């Protein structure tokens, strides 16, 4: 009994990975070739975008917060990358730094609003989403500006599409993020502080944890991860488009929840959230393979999240 209770979090992570594998198996029945190496890597490539956003989301959800500014931080990042680089490799480094800086700044503002102004995370990040949307639309003239037609620098597009040992470069990047984020969360002082704050900010504060700075930093990280996903998506699709960030809000939260991270904070791992991103994307792909129309996919999405929250919520109340 005891042993089972101890590994409950691990079980959730395993369940999320199991779900991903199961979905690929189901997909293979529905659609021959679904589980081929080619198909699996391309599905995981799509999952990596969700997974990167989910890394930031995972950080803030672990402290009981949430980042609703994901859609437009991501979208603005894609626009900023293409317009600042004008599609030239020579300007790629500058554009990437500028874009990541923008993400960090937006996240920093979120954190400052939450910590020092005492604005609830839902309100603060939702407002930030609106502000960035306004800025992006206004400054780009609704994507009619001269630079707005620019493509992502070929180097970035190549980096996303290129492969190493047969695996897309974006997937390698995601793998590195999984390793680094998991390491940070489980083996560093910063990670321990994150879990402490998520469990009980008052007790963490009284144990000497610098709660304010940690929280602000976590929101900034979330902004950076959204911006990073925006850069990769622009490289993946070649261009920025309006509304490209919209699906990532729901998907990032869903991935984190499917991966067993408590929506109330303090419990869960990024390893789980990454599995959540993979299984969620696999689910979408299976539904697509079944020719499920978009409204049907949305309904199934919603139901999956509700069922999981019900199951996990029940467990915690025991």
């Amino acid at each position, binding site marked *: 009994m005891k042993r089972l209770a101890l590994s409950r979090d691990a079980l959730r992570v395993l369940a999320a990975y199991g779900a991903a594998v199961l979905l690929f198996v189901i997909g293979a029945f529905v659609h021959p070739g679904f589980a081929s190496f080619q198909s699996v890597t391309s599905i995981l490539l799509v999952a990596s975008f969700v997974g990167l956003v989910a890394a930031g989301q995972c950080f803030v959800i672990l402290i009981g917060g949430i980042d609703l500014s994901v859609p437009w931080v991501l979208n603005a990042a894609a626009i900023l990358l293409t317009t600042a680089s004008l599609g030239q490799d020579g300007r790629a480094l500058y554009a990437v730094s500028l874009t990541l800086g923008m993400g960090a700044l937006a996240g920093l503002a979120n954190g400052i609003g939450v910590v020092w102004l005492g604005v609830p995370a839902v309100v603060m990040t939702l407002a930030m989403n609106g502000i960035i949307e306004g800025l992006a639309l206004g400054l780009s003239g609704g994507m009619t500006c001269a630079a707005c037609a620019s493509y992502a620098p070929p180097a970035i597009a190549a980096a996303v599409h290129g492969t190493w040992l047969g695996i897309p470069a974006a997937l390698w990047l995601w793998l590195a993020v999984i390793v680094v984020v998991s390491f940070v969360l489980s083996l560093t002082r910063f990670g321990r502080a994150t879990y*402490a704050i998520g469990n009980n900010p008052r007790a963490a504060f009284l*144990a*000497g944890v610098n709660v304010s700075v940690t929280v602000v930093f976590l929101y900034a990280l979330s902004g950076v991860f959204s911006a990073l996903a925006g850069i990769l998506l622009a490289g993946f699709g070649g261009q920025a488009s309006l509304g490209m960030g919209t699906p990532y809000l729901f998907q990032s939260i869903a991935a984190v929840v499917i991966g067993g991270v408590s929506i109330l904070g303090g*419990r869960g791992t990024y390893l789980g959230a990454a599995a959540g991103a993979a299984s969620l994307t696999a689910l979408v792909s299976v539904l697509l393979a079944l020719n499920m129309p978009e409204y049907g996919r949305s309904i199934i999405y919603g139901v999956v999240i509700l069922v999981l929250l019900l199951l996990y919520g029940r467990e915690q109340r025991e």
Partner: protein
Amino acid sequence: MSAAAAAAAESVAAVAAREVSKAFGGVQALRSAPFAAAAGEVHALVGENGAGKSTLIKLLGGRLPPDSGAILLGGTPVRLSGTADAARHGIGTVFQELTLLPWMTVAENLLIGREPRRALGPIRRGAMAPRAEAVLAGLGITHIDPRALASEISLAERQIVEIARVIIRRPHILLLDEPTSSLVEREVAWLFARIRDLSAAGTAVVFTSHRWNEITSIADRITIFRNGAEVGTFDAIDEDEAITLMTGRRVEALYPPLPPVPADAPAVLEVANASLDGGSELGFSLAAGEILGIGGLAGQGHRELFLGLFGAPPLPRARVTVGGARTTIARPADAIHAGLGIALVPEDRKGEGLLLPLSVRDNLTLPILGRLSRLGVIRGAAERRMSREIIARLGIRTPGPAQPVGALSGGNQQKVLLGRWLLADSRILLFYDVTRGVDVATKHEIYELMMRLAGEGRAILFYSSDTEELAHLCHRVLVLRGGRIATELRPPDLAAEAIVAAAMRDADAG
């Protein structure tokens, strides 16, 4: 109790349990426990933490169903579906955890479900506070403002509102789980007067407490539990015998002897111009190896003082000298790293002290992670070794360092919290009511630990809601009243009665 005696007792009892068992996960909290309380009787349940007292109260109060056995009311088995159902049967319960709604007023909390209403049902909001005021006054409570939010009043006041809310419903059976743990003498006296009123009117009162003098002063009968089993019911029993039954072993003198403070012990903490209420100021000095008690009624600024010295939030204008050097303590991290190291064990162990879902190890090492890590990476082997050492040194009963702290008993949780500061090697320890809600055996261990710590030259500032503890465990006691030090008591004048007298002198007059 023999089976025949149990059967006889339960047939006449207002409330009884017949061989009830209850398990949580793999832990058997109660096994075939019999219990019976008659109308008009005050019945105390005593035992260590985890002995099954709270579980029995929860079963009797309808909060949990028994796994086997039955609850009987007036000799008839009943199946209680919840606390509301229990209330319909005339059972009122004050559970150990406070249940007031923090963002509602005292009046709204007190009158919940029985608000004054207009003809068609809407609540007469304007009438709430006067009604609550009248209800409280009827119970002899005049110092709690019914318009205050529940979150604004002190823990003791919340406990009183919690009790008042139950007793104004005039239950036939009143169950109180550690009602006095956060109350001081005068409030306990108030509660006992209410209990006597109710029992005189025929109510059966069942309560739990860890304070022996309270138990003997009010209980008609005492039932002792150990490890989920009833080990005896007595009309009268002396403390030593009771403790032996509770713990299954003999505990020598409850209060260990105090190590003397060396005459040349340096002052390690000096406080001047500290204002607890924005007005009057106080100052004091604490020497190495000294245990300085802080006494007084609840709400006199103790909490502000302890949190203030720890920087959460800092005391305005206070001049603090740690180990001879002026120190600014703006937040807990400053206090932890100040000179000799300051540690705070707060009042609310679960809310302010521990991270319950996290492991024993995580809880132990949180303040020293800076020291334990290199470039931000925690040195895992060193951390595990230090956790194991402290677990062994304090005798923390846990399957291992990875066990979530929330799964340990209250006393062991408190030891984890103490162990955290031993690991940090803090030389100045602020102990705020560390024995609250802790069973007698663990209390004894904490007392001995305090003596050992003082003997090692650590300085302890100690607040307790139990004045007996203050009188026995401190070299000196400062009694706070209205944000000032009203009296300083030293042996031979240091006695529980003297502390109470000093605390109340003006409070009664004004």
